[in-house]
């Protein structure tokens, strides 16, 4: 393991010399959760510091196929097509390890004067984390990354229009924790783990998941910004490893019949490094803060679904008895509710938010979740009754979470609690970007009731997520 982060160093030049870094790859995440950036010559990169290098403003104002958003507007944009900056966070600078003279750095979109653009997903998460810090808490969070792995290369998958791909598994069944399936994927995962560790990304475990060729990778909990950075880097590493080994992998939420890719997000709050969700003096060890926080999460869950299930394809996952939650509910150790609470010991007490799809933007999803909890804390809300039963197959009068991209956008549009924290203009822009995708999907003649993903979804999501 050789993470070699720059954050330990006094001089960037010396760090680059010592690690023979001649090129830097900037890495920024757009609204759709897709990694963008440039490969920069070392001198160009250094010359552009501290504000970073230019990039077209439409990088933050385009859809997932890079078509500029030309039917709605945000105040950060230029009246003519112009440039903005990718401001590097030098604390994230690491060497590549494979490409020996390459370094990587995570960036944020900023205006040309270096000032923040609130719409930038990483900036947005930083703002929400600060709001939580301002009321006295620190956040620790982690994600479960689920993805599908196929024998077909990305090129072969594209030529086959992503149909009948050969999943990497030993059993034709949708087994879980099946060691023979894991063994088939172990060579790939060993390489992934090696690259993750090189970049300083700590992991806890990986296993065979239910779907054909599906793998789950668990990351070590950390602060939300580092977590989202780690998720984006892990997804890129998984893509690169698959690409290098002639395989393909996708975080697309529902690429094939059967189980789907989710991204469950765990978090807990600390104050002075002590967990504050646990209170041994309260019934079932649940602190008042925990209950307020859960109340906010449940109340905002239908609206937050827009960020947690951001694509047309995300909603193919949301079916009763198919593993993902379909109601805004919570329960102790209940994996059928939207919120699974784990509250039996101080060190492990946490909230698992189970709505997220594999194709979510980790910065925006974390921001929406923390904003929801914060709204409950601020208003001292009381959560609805805990769901101790299976939260699938409930009577029809129990409201379901949104079942489409536009239903979710509508819920978000009506939710002032999230808008007040996430920013009205930025939320409105997000909602319009979801309508843009919905119009695009429908304008291409796709049938929304077709049970199979459309070619439009494969072309747009398979390689990008």
């Amino acid at each position, binding site marked *: 393991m050789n993470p070699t982060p720059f954050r330990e160093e006094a001089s960037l030049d010396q760090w680059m010399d010592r690690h023979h870094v001649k090129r830097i790859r900037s890495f920024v995440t757009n609204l759709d959760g897709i990694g963008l950036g440039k490969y920069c010559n070392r001198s160009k990169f250094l010359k552009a510091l501290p504000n970073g290098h230019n990039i077209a403003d439409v990088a933050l104002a385009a859809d997932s196929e890079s078509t500029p958003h030309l039917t709605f507007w945000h105040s950060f944009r230029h009246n003519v097509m112009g440039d903005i900056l990718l401001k590097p966070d030098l604390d994230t600078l690491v060497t590549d390890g494979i490409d020996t003279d390459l370094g990587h750095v995570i960036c944020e979109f900023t205006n040309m004067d270096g000032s923040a653009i609130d719409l930038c997903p990483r900036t947005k998460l930083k703002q929400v984390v600060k709001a939580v810090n301002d009321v006295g808490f620190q956040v620790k969070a982690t994600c479960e990354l689920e993805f599908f792995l196929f024998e077909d290369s990305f090129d072969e998958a594209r030529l086959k229009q992503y149909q009948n791909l050969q999943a990497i598994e030993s059993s034709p069944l949708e087994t879980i924790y099946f060691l023979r399936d894991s063994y088939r994927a172990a060579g790939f995962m060993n390489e992934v783990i090696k690259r993750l560790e090189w970049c300083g990304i700590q992991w806890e475990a990986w296993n065979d998941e239910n779907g054909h060729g599906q793998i789950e990778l668990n990351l070590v909990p950390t602060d939300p910004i580092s977590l989202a950075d780690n998720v984006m880097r892990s997804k890129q590493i998984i893509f690169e490893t698959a690409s290098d080994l002639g395989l393909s992998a996708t975080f697309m939420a529902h690429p094939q019949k059967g189980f789907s890719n989710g991204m469950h997000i765990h978090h807990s709050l600390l104050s002075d490094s002590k967990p504050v969700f646990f209170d041994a003096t309260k019934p079932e060890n649940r602190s008042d803060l925990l209950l307020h926080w859960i109340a906010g999460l449940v109340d905002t869950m239908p609206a937050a679904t827009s960020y947690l299930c951001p694509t047309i394809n995300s909603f193919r996952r949301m079916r009763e008895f198919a593993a993902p939650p379909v109601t805004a509910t919570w329960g102790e150790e209940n994996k059928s509710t939207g919120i699974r609470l784990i509250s039996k010991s101080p060190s492990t007490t946490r909230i698992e938010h189970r709505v997220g799809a594999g194709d979510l933007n980790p910065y925006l999803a974390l921001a929406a979740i923390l904003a929801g909890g914060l709204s409950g804390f601020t208003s001292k809300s009381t959560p609805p009754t805990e769901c101790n039963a299976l939260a699938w197959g409930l009577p029809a009068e129990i409201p379901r979470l949104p079942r489409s991209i536009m239903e979710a956008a509508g819920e978000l549009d009506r939710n002032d609690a999230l808008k007040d924290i996430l920013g009205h203009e930025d939320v409105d822009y997000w909602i319009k970007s979801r309508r843009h995708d919905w119009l695009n999907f429908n304008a291409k*003649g796709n*049938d*929304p009731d077709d049970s199979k993903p459309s070619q439009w979804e494969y072309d747009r999501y398979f390689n990008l997520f």
Partner: protein
Amino acid sequence: MKSEVMPDQIAIVTMDDATPLERVLARVIRDNIKRHHLTLDVLHHQGQVNLISTTSSFNITVSCLADKIVIQRGVQKDAKISLSGDWAGTVNPGMPLKIKGRWQHPRFTAFIKQLLIQDRRPWQVAAQEFFECVHEKVDVNIRVKVQPSNETTCFEWGSGNEDITITGSSSNLQRLFDKQSTLIEEVVLGRIQCHSSLRTTALLSELTINRLLGDL
């Protein structure tokens, strides 16, 4: 399920997950009810009409019931008439469509045509209405010149500090301003040229989409 009741009490009902095409149809029906001053008593014409796509499996049923008109996906076996057309690649089915069953139900067919066919008003009339809507809904400060490529007369509106010019054939201008198309689609297809700032283009495009979908 969304229900919008017109002043004359004809409710137009669409599903929560209505597609753009369903929403456009709902808006067209609302506009036609208003334009033709239709009241609840016209709903003695009851029955269903299937809108069949000739290029995909995507179909819609418009059901005229005693007190409302319901738009939903799928087809009904006992529909009185069916309309068919190619609406892949558009959110607007357009007209004319092929009509089946009209001979058995001539009055119902005439009623459905009255509900679904969008009037073609002179482009200047539509443009005037469009820019009044711009004035009311959009934060732009513009002076507009609309110049049809096949006519000598032009349309001017506003006295703002940003000059914008829109050109195209009078039929394309009519479609654009009368809720039958969107600015961005017309521009991308080269049927309309719009010279303005990117912001104004985006905001005007958004308005054309909102008007098309009935989101205002």
